[in-house]
């Protein structure tokens, strides 16, 4: 207690150690960085966020181009309507997404984390807002050390207000993917939002604000499953960010005019800028760490320093473990081929099947009560329920026919029938045949349903015709 200066220093340190969700952590003040990779990331942010905020407003054939219409249980994607029966496509898409991640990870390391992950992208915007309002890194640190004053309160309040506004718009856009966004916007203005829409806008806004404003690198370190298992896809030929130990060490400060070789120093001037710019607060010079999200901020800043010192760039650089150890890097290697082959087969299959997708589904269900019936005339009769699903965006009239056996007669009391878009119609029918035309207990037949206005919309569904064995 009598050692006043030491006590003050302690308090200062305690202030800097922020009580975070996981543990006491040092708040990370990432310094702004300029350079080629920073520009690439800004480009990625603009493209990805532009797509996120813009896509719901696109229209296609007079409808919202991308609408995951949960209230009507259908997905609209650029003029194609997907129904729950099309779950296969969604599953295929998810598998393709996972495989792409494997493929790009094997090839280029954590490219996803550094440039495309929503966590990175939104954090980048939140940090930009923070810099605009609080100033650069030294100003932010100074502000946090200041006692609470009207000015500090105004600055902090302004930052959080800006964050919250941006988050609310993000939440609104998110809900706009699930309910028509034009209508949603109108109802926001007139304050007529439904309770569930309001809930999801607030929930998603809160998640954005919390993740990009407060959690930041902790999401990557503690919550991201990919961060933990991505090392399984790494090998010695994967692109990583690495510090060149051999060239940099021993590190140490020196004047620009001093030739490092003469004083026994490596190229690293120990300016610690690579640590200051790191969004996860690690020191890349300690080697490859799972916290590294591959954002290349340290590469940009170190290149700048090397330029100023008149040393060659690339003390910290994108490289591979093989290349660091002066061995040959193999870009094309078995695991890359395996991922690439699987990926192209799946993408090809998906494209072919969506291109050839007929917006009509037919299910034939046999009457369970009787195997077959004999009519008074001695004919054999089977009863079926034909379920016709119109997966198109417009209603159609359809014609049903049956084939597969000589002399097969279809008794359809409904005749030609209409099915509304997205609806299912059950058509009860009977098939009748003279028993001399069947030679086995179970014969193959087929029902064909065709749209009257478009012969390309046709579906042939196989079925079984049961009867007595006469021969």
């Amino acid at each position: 207690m009598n050692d006043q200066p030491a006590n003050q220093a302690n308090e200062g340190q305690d202030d800097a150690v922020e009580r975070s969700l996981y543990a006491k952590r040092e708040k990370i003040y990432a310094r702004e960085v300029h350079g080629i990779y920073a520009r690439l990331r800004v480009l990625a942010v603009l493209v990805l966020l532009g797509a996120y905020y813009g896509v719901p407003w696109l229209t296609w054939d007079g409808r919202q181009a991308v609408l995951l219409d949960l209230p009507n249980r259908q997905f609209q994607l650029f003029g194609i309507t997907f129904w729950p029966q099309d779950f296969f496509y969604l599953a295929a898409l998810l598998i393709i997404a996972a495989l792409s991640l494997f493929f790009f990870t094997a090839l280029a390391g954590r490219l996803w984390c550094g440039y495309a992950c929503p966590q990175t992208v939104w954090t980048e915007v939140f940090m930009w807002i923070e810099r605009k309002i609080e100033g650069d890194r030294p100003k932010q640190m100074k502000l946090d050390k200041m006692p609470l004053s009207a000015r500090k309160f105004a600055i902090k309040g302004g930052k959080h207000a800006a964050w919250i506004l941006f988050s609310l718009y993000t939440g609104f856009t998110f809900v706009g993917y699930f309910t028509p966004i034009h209508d949603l916007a109108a109802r926001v203005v007139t304050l007529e939002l439904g309770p569930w829409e309001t809930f999801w806008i607030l929930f998603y806004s809160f998640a954005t604000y919390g993740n990009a404003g407060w959690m930041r690198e902790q999401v990557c370190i503690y919550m991201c499953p990919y961060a933990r298992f991505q090392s399984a896809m790494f090998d010695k030929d994967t692109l990583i960010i690495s510090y060149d130990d051999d060239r940099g060490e021993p590190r140490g400060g020196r004047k620009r005019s001093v030739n490092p070789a003469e004083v026994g120093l490596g190229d690293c001037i120990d300016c610690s800028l690579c640590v200051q710019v790191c969004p996860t607060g690690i020191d890349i010079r300690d080697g490859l760490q799972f916290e590294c999200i591959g954002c290349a901020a340290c590469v940009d800043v170190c290149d700048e320093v090397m330029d100023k010192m008149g040393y060659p760039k690339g003390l910290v650089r994108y490289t591979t473990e093989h290349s660091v150890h002066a061995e040959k890097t193999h870009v094309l290697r078995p695991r890359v081929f395996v991922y690439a082959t699987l990926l192209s087969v799946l993408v090809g299959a998906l494209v072919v099947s969506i291109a050839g997708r007929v917006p009509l589904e037919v299910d034939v269900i046999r009457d369970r009560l009787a195997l077959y019936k004999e009519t008074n005339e001695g004919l054999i009769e089977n009863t079926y329920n034909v379920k016709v699903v119109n997966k198109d965006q417009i209603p159609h009239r359809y014609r049903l026919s049956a084939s597969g056996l000589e002399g097969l007669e279809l008794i359809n009391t409904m005749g030609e029938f209409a099915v509304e878009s997205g609806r299912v119609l059950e058509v009860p029918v009977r098939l009748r045949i003279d028993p001399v035309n069947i030679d086995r207990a179970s014969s193959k037949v087929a029902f064909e349903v065709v749209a009257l206005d478009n012969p390309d919309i046709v579906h042939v569904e196989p079925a079984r015709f049961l009867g007595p064995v006469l021969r």
Partner: protein
Amino acid sequence: MENGDPTIPLIQRVVAVLWPSFLTAGLATIIVFTIYDPQIVFSCVGGPEINRLGAYTIGFFFFWAINALACAMSMYFCKPCSRVSGSVS
């Protein structure tokens, strides 16, 4: 609570329960409600009249709660057995 590794802070254990269950609840919502219409499921169990977005929402939080329960039980069973008997004696 002496569950699990005492070196892991409580708050991290809370997130270890809530976060994986959130992810799997999202997955369960997609798969289950693609097969079954949540609105019909709710009317089958005699729930009050609710629109579909509400049914999806309640379903999602239901899955989240159930999955969180499983995660919490995993965490509980991670407690070493020796310590359980030790606390009895």
